[in-house]
Each structure stands twice: as C-alpha cells, then as structure tokens.
C-alpha cells in the first residue's frame, strides 16, 4: 500500500455499530492498528427538543426535556424545574427537594452501574458486564417502586414532586443500598486488581489535569484527571445545600482512574441517600406554581451522572418558554475522545469512547424533522409484511 492509501484506510465506528448502543459516527484513520486521525459526526438522534419547547407550555416542556436522555432523565427535569421555579420566584418545599435529590442519586447509581457494564463489555469482559447489570436491577426496581417508571421516572412537577417516600419505601431503599454497597466494594476490587482487565485500562487514554482544563471536560471524566469540578459541590442546589457532597477525584487520568472515580462516587451516593432518609423533612410535596412565568432569564446547573448539565431558560411572561438551551455533559467530553484517540491502538477506541460515558441522545437534542416532503403514514402489520415481500422480490 502506498502511504496515501494508508492514510485513507479509515475505519468507521457507527452510526450502526455493536460498540455503540446509540448512533454516532466516528471515523478513525488507522496505520496498521494505530490510530492516526479521528473525526466525529453527530446528529443521528435529533428530535428538535430545544425548538420543541418553544411550542409547549412549561409543564409539557418538562416532560419533553426529561426525554432528552433515557438514563439521566431525572436530572434534566430537575434542572428545568429548578430554573423555572427560580424564574417564577417559587420554591419547592424542603421535602420535595430532598426527594428530588434522593431520586437523583438513585439515578446516578443506576447510570454508573450501567456504564460499568457497558465499559466492561467494550473491553470484552462480559462477566463484569452481566454481573453489574444484574445488580443494577436492584436500583431500577427501587426507582420503579418509588416513582412508578423504570426509566423516565417523571418524579418532578413544577413546584414539587409527585411521589412520596413512605416508610415501606425507606425500608426497601435501605435494604437495596446495603446490598449495592457490598457489591460496589466488590466491583472496586475487580477494576483495581484484575490483571487482565488492567491491561486494557491502566495507562490508556491518559489526560493530564492541564489537558482536562483545556479541553473543558466535566464530570467524572474531569475528576479522574484531578480536576475537582462538581456542581453539587461548587454550587449546591436542592437538598445538596443541607447534605454536602465529598468530591471524589483521582489523579492518574487514565481509563482505570475513570473506572475508580465512578465507582467511588457510588459510595458517596449511598452515603447521601442514607443521610437524606435519616433527615427527611416533613411537609408538603408541592407548592402552588403559576402557569405564566414573569419575563426573565436564568441559568440552572445540576450535576448529571456524566457531569455538569447546563440549562439556560428565558421566559417572556407567557406560559411558554422563549428559549431553552440545553448543554449536556457529553458535548464537552466528546472533544476529549478525539484528542486522546491519536496514537492509541484501534482496539482501545471503544474503551476510550466508553470512558467518557457518552450519551448521544443527550448530545443530539436539537432539530430533527421528517425528511422534507416526506409524509408520515401509519402502516398496519399486513401492509408492512407486503412491503417487505415486495422489497425483496
């Protein structure tokens, strides 16, 4: 092969690829097994959410925004609800704030466990994948019991929450958390001691604190590089004001550190959940919320499982937001993958990608409209079958 051909040997990962559970398109130029260039193309799951909020009232927008992401849905609704409440000069009752944080931390556990499994699977360690997902069922069942849904919990209302924590729930949560804490300690042992697994994580994708600062990464990805950035600590919101978070950081900045940071964060989540259950404020779950919100603009930042989630909300006096801007944590983190990829082995690419816990539907939240001129149709089963037969004839 000539050098020109070598340069053009580009391997695509995505939009449809077993390594990615969501569509995103990466292209890696490889020389043998070594990556020499990387590029990304996003937008395969655009749903027009930011534009969509312009045609919906605040209540409807909240549910729409909750569906930005299936894994960290609650933080989106929380960020939006907190922002709109601030604009409307309404404060949700303390019990509601505590429940918001409680559900948020349960969601973080579920998200990190999910990530642990996915990342292990990318490395070809399916045993850890299966076990961590089995244990993740515990927290999903807890969320289902409390809120009523396994994903997209819809626990928030503007001005409060829908679901209450009963004594029975409290017992269930405590039992579940005890079990998970034991399991998490075990997984921490696995990711920090398993020799074969460490061959795939230690020293791979090292990002120095300076690079992390420069690339503007957020969340566990930044904390694994020693950049102590956590909205729950920097700008406490909801019940984090009463329950301060101890920030977890690692200094190595490699994949191993990203594993450790996320797993250690789980312990912090367990502690917070217990603290909230111990000091659950009494009182109402909701407060009256006006349908129209006075003109103004606000910024609402919360810490999603993947990092800082940034909402800019501008109201104009009606019951519909003038502009909602969502900046999800994956977007700034995505740049780091491209920067880190060059020089690594192609086999490390899925791991590097998984290392930032990418969420493509979070990224691609904006505009997607039916193909121009395309009309929507409803097809019956029979029609679909017929179409299939004719297509392949």
């Amino acid at each position, binding site marked *: 092969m000539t050098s020109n051909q070598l340069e053009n040997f580009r391997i695509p990962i995505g939009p449809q690829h077993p390594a990615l559970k969501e569509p995103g398109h990466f292209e890696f130029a490889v020389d043998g097994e070594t990556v020499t260039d990387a590029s990304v193309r996003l937008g395969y799951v655009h749903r027009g959410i930011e*534009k969509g909020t312009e045609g919906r009232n605040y209540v409807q927008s909240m549910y729409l925004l909750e569906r930005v992401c299936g894994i960290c849905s609650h933080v989106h609704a929380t960020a939006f609800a907190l922002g709109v409440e601030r604009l409307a000069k309404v404060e949700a009752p303390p019990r509601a704030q505590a429940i918001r944080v409680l559900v948020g931390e349960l969601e973080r556990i579920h998200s990190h466990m999910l990530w642990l499994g996915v990342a292990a699977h990318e490395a070809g360690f399916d045993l850890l994948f299966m076990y961590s997902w089995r244990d993740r069922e515990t927290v999903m069942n807890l969320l289902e019991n409390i809120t009523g849904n396994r994903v997209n919990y819809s626990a928030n209302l503007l001005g409060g929450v829908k679901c209450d924590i009963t004594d029975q729930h409290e017992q269930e949560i405590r039992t579940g958390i005890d079990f998970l804490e034991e399991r998490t300690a075990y997984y921490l042992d696995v990711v920090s001691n398993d020799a074969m697994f460490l061959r795939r994580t230690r020293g791979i994708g090292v990002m120095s604190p300076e690079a992390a600062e420069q690339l503007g990464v957020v969340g566990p990805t930044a904390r694994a590089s020693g950049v102590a950035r956590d909205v729950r600590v920097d700008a406490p919101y909801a019940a984090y004001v009463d329950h301060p978070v101890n920030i977890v950081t690692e200094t190595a900045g490699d994949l191993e550190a990203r594993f450790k940071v996320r797993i250690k964060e789980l312990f912090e989540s367990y502690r917070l959940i217990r603290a909230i259950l111990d000091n659950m404020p009494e009182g109402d779950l909701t407060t009256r919320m006006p349908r129209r919100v006075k003109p103004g603009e606000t910024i609402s930042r919360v810490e999603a499982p993947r990092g800082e989630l940034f909402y800019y909300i501008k109201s104009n006096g009606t019951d519909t937001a003038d502009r909602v801007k969502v900046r999800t944590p994956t977007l700034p983190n995505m740049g780091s993958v491209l920067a880190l990829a060059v020089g690594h082995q192609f086999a490390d690419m899925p791991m590097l990608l998984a290392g930032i816990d990418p969420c493509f539907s979070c990224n691609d939240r904006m505009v997607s409209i039916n193909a121009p001129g395309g009309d929507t149709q409803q097809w019956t089963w029979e029609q679909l079958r017929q179409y299939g037969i004719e297509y392949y004839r």
Partner: protein
Amino acid sequence: MKLSTMWKEALGSLVQRPATEKYPFVRQEAPEHLRSKLHWDLEGCTGCSLCAKDCPANAIEIITIDKKAKRFVFHYYVDRCTFCGQCVASCNKDCIELVNNEWELAALDKDNFELYYGNDADVDSVLAEPAEADVEEPITA
C-alpha cells in the same frame, strides 16, 4: 494484582439459580405505584380540561356533550401516552387514575389504542359522529 478477581463469584454461579427472569412464563407482580393504563372516573369531572392541556403527549381529549349536565367523554390515546402521571397531578377532582396492573399493552391493531370513557350513551354518540378533526399533532416547529 490478581490474574482473575471474579472466579469465586463465577464458580458460585454454576450452582446458583440463574438471575434471568423467564418473563412470559413467569410474571412478577407489578409494584404498587407502577404507572400503566389510565382510567377516568366520570364522577366529579367538571370538564376543566387541565389534564388535556398539560398532557405532554396530547394523549387526552375531553369531548364536551353537555357542559351543564356534566356530560363529558374522555378520549384517551393509549399509544401516545408516556405514563408520566401529569394528568393525575393536574386533576383537582381526583378523577384520573393510572392503574398498576395493565402494563402489557402491545397489540397488532391500532384500534386497541383508542379508548373512550364516559356514559355508554355519550360514547356511542361520539362514535356515531363522523370522525372529527384529529387532535393536533404535537408541534414540531
């Protein structure tokens, strides 16, 4: 550093029962608060339509037959519903309930996903009328 950290666990699994749930054969009971199909209670509804206004998925339509006599028909599109429970929270009269045991909603026919709640006579009259303009699709732009 160990060559393998999970061997004890893995060996144990050989004798343990698998964690897999054999779903269609073994069904677990739905949790108490699970949100599934929506049910509407005729009593008490004042026709305020707050549920329909707040529904993020446009899954609810209140058809008013006679406002004074409090005759309303509740038209529910199960396939659009996202089971968020906002209508339950919005309703001031506690007329709406998301029951917890009707969650297996798959069907091959679209007709199974349109439900009418109300007096039998009212529902019949709604059904007899030529289909009105559909509820507006969610705004996309």
